[in-house]
């Protein structure tokens, strides 16, 4: 999956040339299969709050090599900055500057994670204290800049824990495990908010989705197929959906994963009802729904026509509304704590020339999961989205070469992500641990330069 440029700059002469010319030299990112260890050690936990102590203890119990100071470590695998009790902007300095002295010791593929509270408090009350809000807000600017400075495939991400939610909440632990693992290889410069203490710890970390049934739409190829394979590897039983034209590819993936295939155009009249009756016939209840089906029909707005606008909106957002409505209204086809994970896009956040239709649909998804999360909360369910940046797929392989090359490099990791990177993030949001994460859109973009 490595592109030609990356292969070149990884060769001896190519590397020398790139260095001389100051060209991007993307590092090889380690995925789960390359680095199965959940934590890259040693782990340095910085911060002196009670929460910091608790997290350090927890990591110790999990068998990690935990240190409270970076001194004299020649190689550091992971750094946690626990900033949950900072009260003024001045409180940031002591913790952050400890990391400064350790930056050059970060190992390739290292992980830096901040744990702090949202500036607005993250709950209904909102923060009243201006200094507190400023300090908390500061963490975001710090982390996003730090992520740009990471080298060697290292990443930096943040967890925002709502006021009133303990640092031992399943969502915090789960997000921390995700960011520290190789599963988040292409996620950098991102924050995830844990807004409640809901969810439960994973009983079987190697098979976190065992006993769960997951629907994946648009599953026949590309990112959808990667999602299916990842959820299957995590132990989930799968219902794979795609359009009838992709039926044989879908069947073959279903055979590989021992999954149940369903051929359905999600934009067809009554698609939701057909899905519901199919689930009933097969006696299946869904614990997870991954709404991945999506298409592009790029054109500048000046050249946009209904035959390019309508299908994009119909597949990418309207189908998500109709399918989730049908699943919820059926009443008997969803499991106890249903998880919905939708596919958004960085185009839906930052916009993209030639993609007014696509961006409208994907921005719609981002707002949709927020609204849906509120609807699912009484059921103990969640809805979140993942926004991929440039991912190496059949779809992006069709972008003209120069445009594609630029799109691939304009992120902190200087490379395109892989479908599995998107899939891993979805698997995390679908897990029991992620129960406290609600209505979020998590970017999988290597910290793309565009958008927030």
């Amino acid at each position, binding site marked *: 999956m490595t592109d030609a440029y990356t292969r070149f700059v990884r060769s001896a002469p190519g590397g020398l040339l790139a260095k001389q010319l100051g060209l991007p030299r993307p590092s090889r990112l380690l995925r789960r299969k390359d680095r199965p260890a959940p934590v890259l050690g040693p782990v340095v936990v910085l911060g002196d709050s009670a929460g910091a102590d608790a997290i350090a203890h927890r990591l110790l119990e999990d068998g990690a090599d935990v240190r409270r100071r970076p001194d004299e470590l020649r190689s550091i695998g992971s750094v946690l900055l626990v900033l949950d009790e900072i009260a003024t902007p001045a409180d940031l300095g002591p913790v952050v500057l400890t990391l400064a002295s350790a930056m050059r010791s970060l190992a390739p593929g290292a992980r830096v994670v901040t744990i702090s509270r949202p500036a607005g408090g993250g709950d209904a009350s909102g923060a009243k204290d201006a200094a507190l809000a400023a300090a908390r807000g500061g963490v975001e600017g710090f982390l996003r800049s730090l992520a740009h400075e990471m080298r060697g495939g290292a990443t930096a991400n943040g967890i925002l824990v709502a006021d009133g939610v303990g640092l031992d909440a399943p969502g915090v632990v789960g997000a921390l495990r995700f960011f520290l693992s190789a599963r988040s290889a292409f996620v950098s410069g991102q924050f995830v908010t844990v807004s409640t203490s809901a969810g439960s710890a994973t009983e079987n970390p190697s098979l976190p989705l065992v006993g769960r049934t997951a629907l994946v739409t648009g599953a026949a190829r590309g990112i959808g197929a990667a999602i299916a394979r990842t959820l299957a590897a995590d132990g989930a039983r799968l219902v794979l959906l795609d359009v*009838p034209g992709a*039926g044989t590819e879908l*069947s073959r993936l279903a055979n590989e994963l021992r999954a149940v295939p369903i051929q*359905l155009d999600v934009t067809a009249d009554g698609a939701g009802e057909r899905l519901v009756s199919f689930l009933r016939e097969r006696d299946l209840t869904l614990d997870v729904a991954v709404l991945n089906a999506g298409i592009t029909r790029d054109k500048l707005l000046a050249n946009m026509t209904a035959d390019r606008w309508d299908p994009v909106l119909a597949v990418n957002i309207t189908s998500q509304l109709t399918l989730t409505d049908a699943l919820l209204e059926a009443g008997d086809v969803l499991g106890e704590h249903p998880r919905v994970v939708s596919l958004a896009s960085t185009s839906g956040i930052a916009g993209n020339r030639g993609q007014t239709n696509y961006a409208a649909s994907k921005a719609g998804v981002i707002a949709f999961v927020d609204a849906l999360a509120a609807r699912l909360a009484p059921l103990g369910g969640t809805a979140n989205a993942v926004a991929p940046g440039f991912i190496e797929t059949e779809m992006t392989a069709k972008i003209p070469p120069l445009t594609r090359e630029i799109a691939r490099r304009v992120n902190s990791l200087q490379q395109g992500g892989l479908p599995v990177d998107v899939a891993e993030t979805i698997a995390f949001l679908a897990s029991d641990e992620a129960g406290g994460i609600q209505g979020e859109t998590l970017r999988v973009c290597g910290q793309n330069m565009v958008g927030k």
Partner: protein
Amino acid sequence: MTDFPRDALILGGNRIPFARSGGPYAGISNQDMLTAALDGLVARFGLQGEKLGEVAGGAVLKLASDLNLTRESALGTPLDPRTPTIDMSKACATSLETVVHVSNRIQLGQIDSGIACGVDSASDSPIEVTPRLRRILHRAFAAKTPMQRIKALSALRPADLAPVPPRNGEPRTGLSMGEHQAQTTAQWGITREAQDELALASHQKLAAAYDAGFFDDLVTGYRGLARDQNLRPDSTLEKLATLKPVFGVKSPQVAEPTMTAGNSTPLSDGASSVLLGSDEWAAERGLTPLARVVDTRSAAVDFVHGEEGLLMAPVYAVPELLDANGLTLQDLDFYEIHEAFASTVLTTLKAWESEEFCREKLGRGGALGTIDRDRLNVLGSSLAAGHPFAATGGRLVATLAKLLHQTALETGRVQRGLISVCAAAGQGTAVLLESVTD
């Protein structure tokens, strides 16, 4: 101990959409298509790793290298590689005969489960060398000395090098199937209008069945094709009427040619499969039986000496099948008469309605009578779907089995259905199915 014969049950089917020759499956081999149809069946019924009793398949247009076509295709699927296979062939009746073969074995207790399948690619039909070139090359290969080899090859003439395309005609008459049928059509006085009406109905019914989702669990899309490529839901009698006759135009026996590209099946590519099993085998896997294979008869006619039309054999096979089972033609709930040409169906029906024909040719006391046309090919047939020769039988069996099962559930009454397929060389096969409900 189970008493034999026992029921052979049709549990479901899967096919890829049929494509027109030279269409989206051009360049795809028979093995690719048959593997795709089997992969879809395995996925639908969760047969990964299953060791079945037998997979029986075949193709009409078959490359010499496809000796073990069914075996090679099955090995490409997640079925247990220890599943035995057999290749069979009987022109357009091939996969109807593979269904009969598998059901016979199940009925006799020789196997508990099996797949009957068939595939054909008119886009990838074999092109052979001339018999003379073949003999010269064999002689050259067998030569012991270079001189002998040169001598053998020196017999080569430029004309020997021309490839031999697939023969589009009956070897014993030199006439194509369409030319033969054009004579039968004229002989029975089947009108152009009647043929076009039947063709239009086929398209409309098939389209309606797709729209209703009937084929959701019978067809698996392939290479971007979700429905049969030949299907023209918006066709009209006016459009069909504009087409020029293509068969019988030069035949002295045909005064007014009526057979067009619109009321004849096109050359097609595709594959189909049917899953069969015993009651116990189905129950162990939680599969719902749709219908049982009741009985079958084959017939052949002497078309060579002009005694009977080439595609008339089913006209003889069906009454024999009905008699054997104590049924009249009118006792059936659904009729699937393969639409090789619209006129094939119409001559078949007209022959059964003819007092004279039934007395003289079938040796019966009188006509078999008319059928309720609303029960004929109710979900469309080959004129709309296309006709990849060896795949048509599988399409018909799976479609009819589901129709019988659904109707039996709706009406609470056992449903009987007939399949009749004509085949090249004056042959035909008829099969009787009966609905099964729990």
